[in-house]
């Protein structure tokens, strides 16, 4: 087996372990709940002990814990996440629809954050220990220190008269051609995405700065300088490519923080995504929905990290050794 495929298999193994740990954790987390659904279901006129036992059998709750766990795994393998208590629809459908709303908003936000973060990080590294570097680093730190929900409220205070601050589309819109709908959606997306970008870009700035700073000390950069290459060329062809591995790793590792951020952003802007669904599920004590959403969110984050490992193998083949 080559070191390359061994590296690949190892990373995939870790991801599978992570997903399995999540499934298990997710199962037992919701088993420690006080009270059970059966007791409240059996509380009907004429409800008897027999009815309760029949319901227990129907839901498979008479089995021992490991039997329930096996049932849970089998159902999951078939894509069944249960039924939402509040909407009485399959959780799988609800979660996937919410995810469809979350992904574009989060992607736009993260794209802005990466663009701003990496660019400002490169500038700070090139101008290191100057006023420009200090200004960039300090602004990045201060903005990164601000609570996401507070940034959201600040943006609402500033832009509420120009941009929509709630929901994903205008419920009173007349036009139903593709382009007006798209324009409406994008307009609703601006503030949530901007909030997410502001809340996350600081860490990208700081990591890019130190990663590029580390490569600027290398011999090949000095050699390129001595040969008289322009700054932009050195940064683009020598410094940045060698700094990419830590940057990509950090961006992937921040996936958890970003998802956490979008839960806050979606709650603040009533964006009908998976974070908003989680918040609603908590308020309505809709445990199947909460369980399904948490599971999907965690698996997405684990997969993003796996993807980063693969991308890093492309950027730096030495990593497999």
């Amino acid at each position, binding site marked *: 087996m080559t070191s390359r495929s061994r590296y690949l298999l190892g990373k995939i193994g870790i991801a599978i372990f992570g997903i399995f740990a999540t499934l298990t954790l997710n199962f037992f987390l919701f088993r420690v709940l006080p009270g059970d659904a059966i007791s409240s279901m059996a509380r009907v006129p004429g409800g008897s002990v027999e009815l309760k036992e029949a319901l227990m059998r129907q839901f498979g709750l008479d089995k021992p814990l490991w039997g329930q766990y096996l049932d849970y795994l089998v159902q999951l393998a078939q894509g069944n996440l249960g039924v939402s208590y509040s909407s009485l629809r399959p959780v799988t459908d609800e979660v996937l629809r919410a995810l469809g709303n979350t992904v574009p908003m989060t992607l736009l936000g993260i794209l802005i954050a990466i663009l701003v973060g990496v660019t400002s990080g490169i500038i700070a590294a090139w101008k290191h220990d100057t006023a420009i570097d200090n200004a960039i680093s300090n602004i990045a*730190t201060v903005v990164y220190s601000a609570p996401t929900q507070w940034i959201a*409220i600040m943006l609402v205070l500033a832009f509420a008269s120009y941009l929509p601050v709630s929901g994903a589309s205008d419920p009173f819109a007349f036009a139903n051609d593709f382009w007006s709908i798209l324009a409406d959606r994008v307009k609703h997306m601006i503030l949530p995405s901007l909030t997410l970008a502001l809340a996350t870009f600081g860490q990208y700035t700081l990591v890019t700065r130190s990663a590029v700073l580390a490569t600027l000390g290398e011999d090949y950069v000095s050699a390129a300088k001595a040969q008289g290459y322009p700054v932009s060329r050195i940064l683009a062809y020598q410094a940045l490519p060698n700094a990419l591995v830590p940057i990509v790793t950090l961006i992937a590792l921040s996936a958890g923080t970003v998802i956490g951020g979008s839960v806050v952003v979606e709650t603040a802007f009533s964006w009908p995504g998976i974070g908003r669904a989680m918040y609603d599920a908590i308020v309505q004590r809709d445990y199947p929905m909460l369980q399904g959403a948490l599971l999907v969110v965690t698996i997405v984050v684990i997969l993003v990290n796996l993807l980063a490992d693969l991308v890093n193998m492309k950027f730096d083949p030495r990593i497999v050794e």
Partner: protein
Amino acid sequence: MKFKAAITILGLFFLAALSGPLFGIDPGPIDVQHIFAAPSAQNWLGSDDAGRDVLIQLVIGALPSLVMGLSAAAVAILIGGTVGILAGYSRGWLDLVLLRIMDYFIVVPALPFAMVITAIWGPGLGHMIVVIGILLWSTTARVVRAQVKSGRERLYVQRARALGASHLHILTRHILPQVLPLIGTTGSLAVALAILTQAALEFFGLAGTGVLSWGTMIRFAFQRDAMLNDAWWMVVPPGLCICLVITACYWLAQSLEQRFNPRLHTTDLRIRSFALRAPATEKP
């Protein structure tokens, strides 16, 4: 410079936080005359939807926010430090198992997990401290593990072992002194993260009832239509306070790191990279 600024900011906030219970400051009864009153000479930061002074609430809210952050960070460091020392010192399969668990907790989205666990367990400050603590320990564990791993190979530690020193002696006399300076750095970062996570949980209404902190102030401003009434003074101050405290924590972490361990870049918020540039082991 950054160190002094950070210490000054944190010190001032702690003094303010302590002055709340010390002088028995109270936001007072509901005052319908001053609902959403703008900042004035009497109420420097205006009043909220119940006509109570925002500045007084800000002072009272400082204590739960700071104490929460410190306690959750303490839990995280206790778990992270123990696991990190255990993993780094033991090597072999135990190290591998603990490393996988650390990696899992580093990747896992902390806020959604914290939301779910707090919602199931029941809201409350004590619960939040434990939940945040058990979700934030992994970064500390990673840093400590790397340090212990390289530390136990140092020449003087090996000499101590050759002279027959027990594991306990090596751990307490040689390993721990190497690890403690790191705790200052990762500890400040943990406090910052804990305060942010707490504020987010409070924004979701998971603090329980009757808690007045900066996080719940932001929630109340959001819930009770402060924005519709243009009452920016209800929401700007608590957010700015959180922002300042956390910036101070980051600056503290950065300056502590520069002082104690300039080669280990943990405070640029990179999480895994110290493995790439862990200090080389000394050649005998």
